[in-house]
């Protein structure tokens, strides 16, 4: 099959790649570009481990084609910290031990960042529903919710 040439922006950098027309953006990120921070937990849009932000929209990258990224802005977990200073969400996830195995963590961080961008002062319920597209099997979500609450209050103060 002929490849599709794509030019896109990933974490602020211009990136060009060739991909198959039926290849997912998740596969492109992981297998072609070496950005393995987004994880494949299901490949069917059910777990959120592959969450990325595409032009200000939270999406499952396993449900987006690589070719669809043409001309758009992609944000992945690899772009979340600035140099060696962590995003407040990353910092709070560490402090609250909001991760055990950590496989769901990149997806949660991206989803939480998107949530706080749209709703800087969410209630517990809004956080719970806002993150309901991301599965975590280890934590029972308690510490994740607390980390997001704490990060929200830090970010408001900033």
């Amino acid at each position, binding site marked *: 099959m002929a490849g599709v040439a794509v030019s896109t922006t990933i974490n602020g950098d211009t990136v060009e790649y060739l991909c198959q027309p039926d290849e997912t953006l998740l596969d492109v990120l992981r297998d072609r570009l070496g950005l393995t921070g987004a*994880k494949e937990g*299901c490949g*069917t849009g059910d*777990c959120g481990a592959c969450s990325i932000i595409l032009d200000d929209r939270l999406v499952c990258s396993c449900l987006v084609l690589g070719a669809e990224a043409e001309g758009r802005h992609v944000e992945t977990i*690899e772009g979340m910290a600035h140099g060696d200073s962590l995003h407040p969400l990353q910092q709070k996830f560490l402090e609250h031990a909001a991760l*055990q195995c950590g496989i769901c963590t990149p997806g949660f961080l991206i989803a939480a960042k998107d949530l706080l961008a749209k709703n800087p002062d969410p209630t517990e319920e809004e956080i*719970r529903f806002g993150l309901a597209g991301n599965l975590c099997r280890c934590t*029972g979500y308690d510490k994740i919710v607390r980390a997001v609450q704490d990060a929200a209050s830090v970010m408001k103060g900033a």
Partner: protein
Amino acid sequence: MNFDPRYSGRSFTSVGTRPIRPDGVDKVTGRARYGADFNMAGQLVGRVLRSPHAHAKIRKIDTSKAEKLAGVKAVITAADLPDLTDGDAAMYDILDNCMARTKALYDGHAVAAVAAVDARTARQALKLIEVDYEVLPHVVDVDEAMKHTAPLLNDAIFTEGLEEKPVKPSNVTKRTQYGHGDIHEGFGQADFVVERSFKTEQTHQGYIEPHACVASVSSDGTADLWVCTQGHFVYRQHCAQLLGMEASKLRVTSSEIGGGFGGKTHVWAEPVALALSRKAGRPVKLVMTRDEVFRASGPTSATSIDVRIGARKDGTITAAEATLRYSCGPYAGMWAEIGAMTAFACYKLDNVRTVGYEVLVNRPKTAAYRAPSAPMAAFAVESAVDELAKEIGMDPVEFRIRNAAQEGTRSSYGPVYGPIGIGPTLEAAKNHPHMKAPLGKNQGRGMACGFWFNFGGQTCTDLNIGMDGSVSLAVGTVDVGGSRASLSLVAAEELGIDYGQVKAVVADTSSLGYNDMTDGSRGTFSSSMATISAARNAIKTLRDRAAQTWDIPIDDVVWEKGHAIAKGEKYGNLAALSLKEIAAASGKTGGPIAGHSELVADGAGVSFATHICDIEVDPETGSTRVLRYTVVQDAGKAVHPTYVEGQYQGGAAQGIGWALNEEYIYGKDGRLQNPGFLDYRIPVCSDLPMIDTQILEIPNPNHPYGVRGVGETSIVPPLAAIANAVSNAVGVRMTHIPMSPPRILAAIEAER
């Protein structure tokens, strides 16, 4: 090395604090490498062809067309994995499960595999493999499978453990029995008897990371395996045995692991990946899809359990009995046996008997799932206990306290208990504000207890002190939930240095001696024991180096707060030497400083928990909401309390999913109908409330710090606690897990 593992009652500086884990930054930045995040140059993509039939004879497999497809580098079937198990039945089952030999025994059973240049080619190749099946009748239900008329999975199986040797083969591989006293006499003394039958459906561990590995076999017989596993040393042994390799030539590196819960204690795809790589002469990456994870890995047993408990008016249990039938998938297991051992472990019983039946069914091979077999047994027993308390007219907590096991009690599985925490967790639950909080309409409160053994096992740890005084700790137990942080705390505690000076890593199989896997809640218990022992060995060397520097006898040097100190007035002029100073001079005092430890960390303390929960049921739809949840559990000593809380919360959440939603649903054709997270629904964030935790610390006498395993017990009580809460909310005893809305509605209707 004379290591004394006894609890010393010391006070702590580092242990019990809550620092950030050493692998944390990598995990929040996406840098941490899990099973599928690793690649080798020239690697191929491996894919597995799976049986669409629940039970079928494999007459013939024709791989010729697939082999001819451009880009296909290897196709394998069972013929490429010859039987080298030499009469080891358990290993043979593992082999047969990795690749079906003569029969496909469940929907999803592997029958062939390919390695190709890319995923698309591999998928195409699978379609070109022709398998000639003779479909056989199947059975997936545990009770059905026990009937004489049921299709037989294996006609060479005759039930073990029966008084009379059976003359006919059966799907029941084994009968086991536990208990003591005389239950007939015990029931004779009872004023009240409750007798009930219960069922639980099969669930999956549900780790978010699918099984993944990269295998590379060289023509000289050496091999590398990168894999997500709970035990890379065990994987090495199993793979080496199944492939006829020397263990030392197979280096297994454990990746970061994205959840296991028991499901990553078995090899599934790894021997297949190695066999593909051997045949293709190139590295092969094999990653399961979610569909494959559900159909062919995990799951836990489906069960059917009868319970009978009798008590006197005063609330003393006089006799208890249970018959437990557990599905094992197509291969013999000991799942019902563990259920039979754990069922009544919380109670002090003079007369108790449990009988377990291991049952073969056409479902995937049952794997351990967090305190395997205990949650289902606890569901049945704790439901009956609640009902009995109600009949007697006693508060369910009081009733349990009255009958709780204590130090000196003969456990229902045999041995007499040492110091244990069931009583204290019940007292703590009784006094918890949660117990007194008001309930609204359609709401019910339930509580239940749980028990798990906890394991120790073979453990090996290296502690190396760098010339700059920093300490690297190499452990061989895979870190499934923060154990590197806990073990760094332990090393810091023992050496008397800062947590930040210690860096713990999980070493590969070529860098460290054998370690059992991280199962049975043993990771922190065992490796902390080995870490303490290794640190003590290093301290001996540190003291020796200081003694040399000072030119005094080593016996005059003590180790305190990270420093060597010359003790006695005659040494008043010798300033203490820090670990850093001794390390800096090590080149001149005898070379590198390290401490090693190889031990069997036996004596893991048993653990108990009590859970309380409030549930609201919508009587119109049967849907449920968890309003409040509290976990009380004994940790022995919480090394890193935040991660202990995390284990409590995670286990409770898994139990909630099991109790209310999760189940394998098979069609009439014996095929799994919900192999995905959409239809196999695990709890999401909006399904749950905060989960309160209370850590009790009743020291384990067999660990220097008093540590007990903490990982598993938390999944034992939830099924029962929630069933009791739902039963209280709707006024009908719930006897079938999961309590999905249709089941709750049906139970309410049946009562009307």
